């Protein structure tokens, strides 16, 4: 090696020098952004286009997809999501050789076609923490295109409430000879606070429009069904109360929104205020407002922000993590870590569950990925601190013999049929076929069956911890699978036996009358109710306003 230990550093120096010429300085005008990208990106580079299910570096992404494919090519994309049309455009233009990502959501169909057509290779679909982890091991970006709210003339960045993935991406890139290019909404004289120091940022461009932020975590209470209210009652009475769940994460969806809106009403009537749901790893869900206002909640750490919740969050610094400047600070890597290690329960919905309890959101023709759910929805095998909920779940776990240990509660809540009568329970997950057609090493399973502790449906709760054999587990799942083929094929006697043992519990076994499951129980029945509950602080996006 002749003592040459800084080739990558010299490569960065070269890129910066070329970028300074192409961009005309550190603060680049938007007209020169394509030239800049063509000057600093080399064929085969690992490139991260920042974006999650919330904020997106959309201007940089669009600009990248407008570069000359002869210059910018064979890229290896390493990023949280492939959610923007421009992400997939870049692939269709033949500029990408390989992708490693976490979630594709709205582009899942287009992505599946490109993979099947052999146009792109998928390295792996990761969880967020897993991908962040690889940024520091073998997938360190050579170029990171990030999004911030503001920059100052020196290049310091303010990321504000939507800090999200930025610190993890920049840390890995800037300290391993990579290049960081930031799009900002505004360039100002003085930032409210510095979230990313200028020394870690190479170029800044003011985008023509503010970066896109998706209000992904807003659920209109008007759309919550009575079945979802019933399932929320079962979750609260049959799981939250019984295990004493104080620290938790909710997946996004109407099922969990229903639980949040039942806390100030149903849960309060059960005397559970202060006994459940006090500490959260959760985005600022508008549907949590009534529970916060009712004094149910002590603390919420957020992965990202939510459009329209900023003023409310800023006015509740005792609850949320808020900077000295008065605006929230989110951080996906830390919140995912919190959800994995410091929460006793994860609850979320899914599209398909098989007879072993494996669950997946991959359906035929769609490569959707799974974002953060597997980090939350997995028993933390490295956890060592005890809590009553964790110990109780551990004492029920039939696999725990000998050495005592705890167990995270991982709950899947699904109505047995989704819309268009698609069954949520299947003998074989579509994930097998999706994995095969995409040439993946493994079927893309979101939550493995051995991590799932409970399944809630409108028919009842199956406690999988208490099952002693694979057969019992299968019958427990069939026993809550309703009128799906999986449910109809149950061994009725075996299910009744499981019911006697408390492994399958019906609403009546929990003292819940399904006829009382009405929308009247919801603490807010519309977006307008949420605004009112927030004292007018919540400012919902236009599309959620109908008044």
């Amino acid at each position, binding site marked *: 090696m002749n003592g040459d230990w800084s080739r990558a550093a010299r490569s960065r120096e070269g890129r910066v020098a070329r970028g300074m010429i192409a961009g005309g300085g550190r603060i680049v005008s938007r007209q020169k952004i394509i030239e800049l990208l063509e000057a600093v990106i080399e064929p085969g580079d690992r490139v991260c286009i920042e974006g999650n299910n919330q904020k997106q570096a959309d201007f940089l992404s669009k600009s990248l997809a407008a570069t000359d494919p002869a210059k910018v090519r064979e890229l290896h994309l390493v990023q949280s999501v492939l959610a923007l049309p421009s992400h997939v455009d870049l692939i269709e233009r033949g500029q990408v050789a390989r992708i490693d990502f976490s979630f594709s959501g709205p582009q899942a169909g287009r992505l599946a076609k490109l993979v099947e057509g052999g146009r792109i290779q998928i390295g792996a679909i990761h969880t967020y923490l897993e991908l962040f982890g690889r940024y520091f091991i073998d997938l360190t970006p050579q170029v990171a295109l990030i999004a911030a709210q503001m920059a100052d003339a020196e290049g310091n960045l303010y990321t504000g409430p939507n800090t999200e993935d930025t610190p993890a991406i920049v840390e890995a890139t800037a300290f391993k000879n990579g290049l960081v290019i930031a799009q900002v909404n505004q360039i100002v004289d003085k930032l409210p606070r510095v979230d990313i120091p200028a020394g870690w940022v190479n170029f800044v461009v003011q985008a023509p429009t503010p970066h896109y932020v998706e209000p992904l975590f807003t659920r209109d209470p008007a759309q919550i*069904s*009575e*079945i979802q209210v*019933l399932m929320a009652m079962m979750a609260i009475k049959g799981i939250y109360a019984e295990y004493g769940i104080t620290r938790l994460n909710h997946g996004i969806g109407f099922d969990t929104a229903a639980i949040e809106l039942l806390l100030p009403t149903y849960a309060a009537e059960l005397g559970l205020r202060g006994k459940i749901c006090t500490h959260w790893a959760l985005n600022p869900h508008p549907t949590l407002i009534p529970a916060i206002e009712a004094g149910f909640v002590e603390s919420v750490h957020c992965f990202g922000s939510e459009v329209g919740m900023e003023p409310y969050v800023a006015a509740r610094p005792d609850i949320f993590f808020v900077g000295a400047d008065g605006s929230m600070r989110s951080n996906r890597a830390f919140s995912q870590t919190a959800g994995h290690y410091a929460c006793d329960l994860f609850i979320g919905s899914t599209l398909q569950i098989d007879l072993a309890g494996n669950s997946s959101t991959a359906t035929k023709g769609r490569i959707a990925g799974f974002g953060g759910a597997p980090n939350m929805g997995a028993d933390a095998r490295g956890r060592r601190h005890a809590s009553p909920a964790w110990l109780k779940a551990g004492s029920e776990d039939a696999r725990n013999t000998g050495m005592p240990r705890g167990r995270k509660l991982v709950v899947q809540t699904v*109505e*047995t*049929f989704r*819309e268009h*009568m698609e069954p949520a329970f299947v003998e074989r997950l579509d994930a097998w076929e999706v994995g095969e057609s995409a040439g993946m090493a493994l079927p893309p399973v979101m939550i493995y069956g051995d991590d799932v502790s409970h399944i809630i*449906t*409108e*028919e009842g709760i199956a406690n999988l911890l208490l099952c002693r054999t694979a057969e019992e587990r299968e019958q427990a799942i069939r026993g809550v699978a*309703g*009128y799906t083929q999986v449910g*109809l094929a149950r061994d009725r006697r075996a299910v009744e036996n499981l019911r006697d043992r408390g492994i399958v519990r019906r609403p009546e076994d929990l003292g819940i009358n*399904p*006829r009382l*499951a009405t929308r009247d129980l919801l603490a807010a029945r519309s977006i307008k109710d949420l605004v009112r509950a927030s004292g007018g602080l919540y400012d919902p996006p236009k599309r959620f306003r109908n008044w």
Partner: protein
Amino acid sequence: MESPRIPVIAGVVGSGNLEILVEAEGPADHCTIVVVTAAAGFGVIWQAVMDDFVARHKPGGVRLSINDVGATPAVVSLRLEQAWDAFQGGSA
């Protein structure tokens, strides 16, 4: 049953929902159920839902008219319980 057994309607006509009319009709050991639905191919599931309902409540001397607008079995079961409860003079 000493309740007046006046006809009752439960549910609403709306997407993903359904409406059930319960009326006194026919002999005490008979129950007539009529389902109107645009969704073809779910006969087995309807039969299973109705079998469970009949086994649970042993409804006699009644006619149930169901106007379905794409309700899931969960919603059907819930509405049946609500309709039956109201017909029995429970929570109307």
